[in-house]
């Protein structure tokens, strides 16, 4: 009897010892994370993550597709883009950038007009990202994107729909800025806004300027956007380098432009000694013997021939200069020269609201040279205003082809924009790389496997030399 009691007591004790376990188990909250975040902390992540991935993946990889650089590593220029090589950009854009921005935007919308500034910034960057997404892959989810509750498998929209949506987003952002109350507004810190330090007037100009960029693709694709272009031209647009949108790299460790760190990480101290980035043939052809100061600013050993398409530079060729391939090279999102040259193009094509073609053309060339020779943060070698003026004034009245070539030059080191220019304008005329297995330069990327695998609505990949809608070929 005593034994049975002891046995039963023992088992009862063991059972009873569990009664206090609930408190012990209530520990499943990560002590090192937050449940909500200030936009001043989320936006910096968006700015820097976007740039870090873009420069290292697109900047160092597709810059030989529009051929402003002669050759790069793991480039898709020969036609078949490995589906694995583009997934990081896709994920960065949709998940890391748009995902965070949609949360910022939702919070700002809930907070009301006092957060219109935050809402507008998130909207502008989002629109810019969608512009780049459609520039790289053409049809991508837009109307059903970023709403997993309602659309767990977003459908893909056509390029015209996306670009129209992008334009509408810029309009939305401008309206938000214009309806921001005069007091009680959420304080965006200088560090929170890495492009403009919270200056909403600059953001408004950028929104309008980026809208023109999107409208130019729509126009080229055949959409009738004349009225929207005229309206955009009547609003403040970028005119000076002080309004440029870029991410500033301090050059200190952890804040260095990937165009240099790819060299320092894998080769040696700088581009000129390591012969990694060489000027592409179109750059050489447009600048050599032109008197354009950008040739000396961009190209070292420029008395030697350019390396040629699909070839890395060596000691017998020219090479991109350490003036530009440097740790504190800013990541440029938009420069005013682009706007000037759109205006020149539109003016030549009879859009009166664009003003005088020649004036705009010279403004564009001047702004671009001034950027590289004076205004760019961390400028090393400068060009005097007198020299710039002398060169700009020496230019003949432009043809449309001249404008296209200058648009191409002004987009130097802006991989997506430069690629869009050569696909939109078909100038400069680019040769198909010798080892290419497609008939033209690369026209698009393949969809990444993560999306293909997870989203049954992902369309089949067209061949990579199939032009996009905006090319209108």
């Amino acid at each position: 009897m005593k034994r049975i009691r002891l046995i039963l007591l023992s088992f009862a004790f063991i059972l009873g010892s569990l009664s206090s376990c609930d408190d012990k188990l209530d520990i499943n909250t990560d002590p090192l994370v937050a449940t909500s975040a200030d936009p001043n902390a989320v936006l910096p992540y968006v700015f820097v993550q976007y740039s870090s991935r873009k420069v290292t993946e697109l900047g160092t990889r597709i810059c030989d597709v529009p051929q402003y650089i002669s050759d790069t590593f793991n480039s898709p220029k020969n036609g078949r883009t490995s589906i694995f090589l583009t997934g990081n950009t896709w994920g960065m854009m949709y998940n890391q950038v748009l995902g965070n921005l949609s949360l910022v935007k939702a919070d700002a919308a809930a907070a009301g007009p006092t957060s219109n500034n935050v809402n507008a910034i998130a909207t502008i960057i989002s629109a810019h990202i969608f512009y780049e997404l459609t520039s790289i892959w053409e049809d991508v989810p837009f109307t059903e994107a970023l709403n997993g509750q309602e659309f767990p498998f977003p459908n893909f929209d056509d390029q015209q729909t996306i670009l129209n949506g992008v334009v509408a987003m810029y309009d939305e952002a401008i309206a938000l800025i214009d309806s921001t109350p005069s007091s009680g507004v959420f304080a965006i810190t200088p560090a929170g806004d890495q492009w403009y330090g919270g200056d909403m007037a600059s953001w408004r100009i950028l929104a309008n300027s980026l809208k023109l960029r999107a409208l130019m693709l729509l126009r080229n694709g055949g959409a009738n956007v004349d009225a929207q272009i005229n309206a955009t031209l009547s609003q403040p647009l970028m005119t000076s380098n002080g309004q440029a949108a870029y991410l500033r790299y301090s050059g200190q460790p952890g804040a260095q432009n990937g165009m240099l760190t790819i060299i320092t990480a894998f080769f040696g101290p700088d581009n000129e000694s390591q012969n990694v980035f060489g000027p592409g043939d179109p750059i050489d052809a447009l600048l050599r013997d032109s008197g354009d100061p950008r040739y000396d600013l961009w190209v070292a050993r420029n008395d030697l021939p350019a390396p040629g398409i699909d070839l890395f530079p060596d000691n017998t060729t020219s090479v991109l200069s350490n003036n530009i391939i440097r740790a504190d090279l800013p990541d440029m999102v938009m420069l005013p020269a682009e706007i000037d040259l759109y205006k020149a193009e539109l003016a030549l094509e009879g859009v009166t609201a664009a003003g005088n073609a020649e004036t705009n053309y010279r403004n564009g060339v001047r702004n671009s040279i001034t950027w590289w020779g004076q205004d760019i943060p961390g400028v090393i070698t400068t060009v005097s205003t007198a020299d710039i003026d002398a060169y700009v004034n020496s230019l003949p009245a432009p043809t449309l082809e001249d404008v296209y070539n200058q648009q191409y030059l002004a987009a130097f080191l802006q991989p997506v924009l430069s690629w869009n220019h050569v696909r939109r304008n078909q100038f400069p005329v680019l040769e198909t790389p010798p080892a290419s297995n497609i008939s033209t330069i690369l026209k698009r990327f393949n969809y990444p496997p993560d999306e293909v695998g997870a989203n049954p609505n992902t369309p089949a990949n067209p061949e990579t030399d199939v032009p996009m809608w905006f090319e209108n070929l």
Partner: protein
Amino acid sequence: MRTHLNGILTLILAFVVHLSFAQEKTVTGNVTDQTGTPLPGVNVLVVGTATGTQTDFDGNYSIRAEVGQVLQFSYIGQKTANRTIGASDVINVQMEEDAQALEEVVVTALGIQREARTLGYGTDIVEGEDLVKARETNIVNSLQGKVTGVQITNTGGNLGGSSKIIIRGVSSLSGRNNPLWVVDGVLINDAQTPGNGSRITGTRDFANGASVINPDDVESINVLKGAAATALYGSRAAAGAIIVTTKRGKAGEGGGARVELNSSTRFESLFRIPDYQQEYAMGTQGQYDAGSVGFDWGPRIVGQTVDNLPITGESGPLQAVKDNGIRDFFRTGITRINNFSVSDANEKFDYRISLTSTNQEGILPGASLDRITIGLNAGVRHNDKLESRFGIQYTTTQSRGTGASGANDPNIISFASFSSNLDQNLFKPWIDESGNQINLITNNQGNVSNNPFWIRNENANDRDDDRIFGNFQLTFKPFDGFALTARVGADLQDDRRLIENSKGTVGRLFGDFISDNIRRNEITSDIIASYNTNITDDISVNVLGGMQYNARIFERQQITGVNLLIPELFSPANAEQAIPVRDFTEARLFGIYGSAEFGYKNWATLTLTARNDFSSTLPTDNNSYFYPSASMAFVFSDAFNIKSDFLSFGKIRASWAKVGNDTDAYLLNFNFNPITVATGQYSLNNNFPFNGALAYSASATIPAADLRPEEQTSYEFGLDLKLFNGRLGLDMAYFKNQNDDQILNIPIPETTGFAFRTTNVGRVDQEGFEISLEATPLIIGDFTWNTGINFSRVESEVVSLTEGLDRVVIASGFNSVQVVAEPGKEFQLYAFPHLRDEETGRPIIDPNTGRRQAGQATTLGSVLPDWTGGWVNSFSYKGFNLSTTIDVRWGGVMKSSTVEALQTGGLVKETLLNREGTFIDTQGIILTDNGDGTFTRRDNDVPLLSAQDFWTSLNDNSVAEPYIYDASFIKLREVGLSYTFPSRLLGDSFIKGLTFGVEGRNLLLLYSEVPHIDPEATLFGSGADGFGIERASIPSTRSIGFNVKLTF
């Protein structure tokens, strides 16, 4: 209920009262084993009654019984003895060892000892002495070839590297495929934390947690494979459990302390050397380049004079260096393992203390490992009711110069880092008096590459790991058959790492370092009550109930310092930028469990178990989960009494179990994470604070609020036969597991703004069979040959994922190669093949270039083997013993990036074909589109530019197919030859035993289709499921040495 209980108690009382009226006397006696040593704890039962007792510590017993009744003496490992009570009041018994049964006492879940015949599931036992015949520094490797149904992989020849063991295939899509390790009843961590945050970017493979278990201190290892075997461990043993029992103290011969010395010295050399070509020099397109390391497409070496020899830059004749100078770089490694132990025991206590030192110098210059292990295991029997035990192991390990593998790191040195005319001796010295790197290599463009000796000697990858695990156990046995045990165990790990790049390293010119402090603590406590009794002569009952509490903490603080001021000072204050990262997780688990074992006539045993776990990682309202198991063992040879000279033992067994699995901590809440790294391609990252800004990002994973535990249902059937008087043993098992409701971060379209969603999803099934054969084919006089063969075939099939999801990435390597889970298949290698003609299967050639073209990425075969096997032999003649282990892995595929680099670099002999002639890819076919949906086919007749063009274009567009091989291999894993001196030779000296032996490990590759490298190598450490991908692995080694074992 109360009435019912009263009734039972009344019956028991009546029974006791009835006994008290019988004619009785007190019988006493002493029970000893075959050597005369008193045996405590022997069960003494009056046959036909419920009366019984146990012998005390001196082997004495006392029991009341009637004349004519029979006393039955039973003890695990001894033949049961019966004695009829006669006139004498004293019955002394000397028991006989039961040779068959002795080997079949196994330690099962929770440290419970069971006779193997009662188990309804298969187990595999490896005796401690088999682990030290050719000792390994990582105990996991010493199981290779010896256990049925396990697959062991390692990352090559790194000192202090990890080894991964999986049991009966993979069951989890989320990487929870590693078994639970249990030492003396206490759960210990077998985790492996990657060296630098990535398993592919210059990864440093540091050891798995269980690697510190000291083989010299192990009595036995029992591998529990099925869910029924592990059900009492609950959720954490869903992938099996490895139960380690450490040695307890034993007295020396003739009493007194037993002192043992076991010393091994071994020499390591490269296991395999690529078939380097020696005919062509460094360079490209036939042109010589003194800096083209690992790219030998230069001119034919004919003794021509060049004006810039590698490294020196001097003028001189081009000359090939034997085996590309690889032996001048890799050195002979030395391993010294010395173990010293003292043990003692008497009826009151047992005690064993052990000290082991392991000192290794690796084949990689600069690599070394020093480990000291101190173990203590002691127990005291305070009286006949109370026992206490205490066991602890402290290990301190210092590894230096761990090699880097993977990609994107200047510290990687692989087989492809050598060239035909590059003399490694010229790299010495590598540093000048001012601390600058010298004797670098310079190419025709003036670009410099690192001196590999600088890499090895100046860029340290150091690890200092302190580990303590131990247990304290108290057992109270107030009366016969009942025991109450309380056990507390702790496993504390303090792991400090420093990965450095010295200033002046090309690729890391300004110097950087990662200082990494990792802490893993695990505490487990159990309270177990057990009661066993014989209800009748034929029916025995053994019930057990218990409670377990388990808590795990992982904490990591990492500082990355970038751009150093003083070159060799790796302090945050010496870095221009210091990036701190902190990580912390904590998980707890309560479990309550019970088992009931019903035995009938010692030939049928039914065991039922149940456990309920409560996990902190699951939603609080759904954190409780229950899992039952049932197993049956039926010894038909006894039941039907059909024992004969042919069949001495026969058992069939069957089991069914359902177990659960919780998940990782902190998967339930949506968070914004503080971010320190903005990621870039090629790991070209930026960091926060950035321009003064801190950063937060929303989690990319949508958490699941309604997570359920994972569920595994399994059943197993087995047959265990002993034939020819035990000379031949055969064990067969068939099993099937179904793993449902896997907790997984499934990829969702990133276009939703998120990348993953945590949910219960998918199903993985494992099905297989195992055969294990043990035989003594020959006994001729003093000569004995024992042989053991094990074979296991497992198929782990991903049955389903979720709707709309084609595949899940299990692990990702560089160059577009992944391990994926796709429904209907085993884990697959997913990569690019060449574009092939559907009709002929031949690669389609681009008629413009003569090159092959890339196809669409697809699955290219299972990364898991079809079957694994081992063949262990032992030959004994008088004092001589020769043992061998052959290890087979058959089937599955692997992708080798090292072979890819060797071939694209023109380094190996197959690249000599048509080096200077016209090169046409004759395997290729050219298709011409006829425009009507048909094609005209012709053998490829378009030459490539050169042989170099062929080999370097084979992997264009990330094609991996040419480097994917059948991963099958057969290895001569171990050979040990020893001689034990007979005691007559030792005479009366203080030496009681002396054994001398030679031993070798990883001796021969008997079969493999993978060229140039060890087919076992993998890129990923034990903490990931990256089977089948190899990239720049540290070359593995062959080791040969000798061993001396002394007993005093």
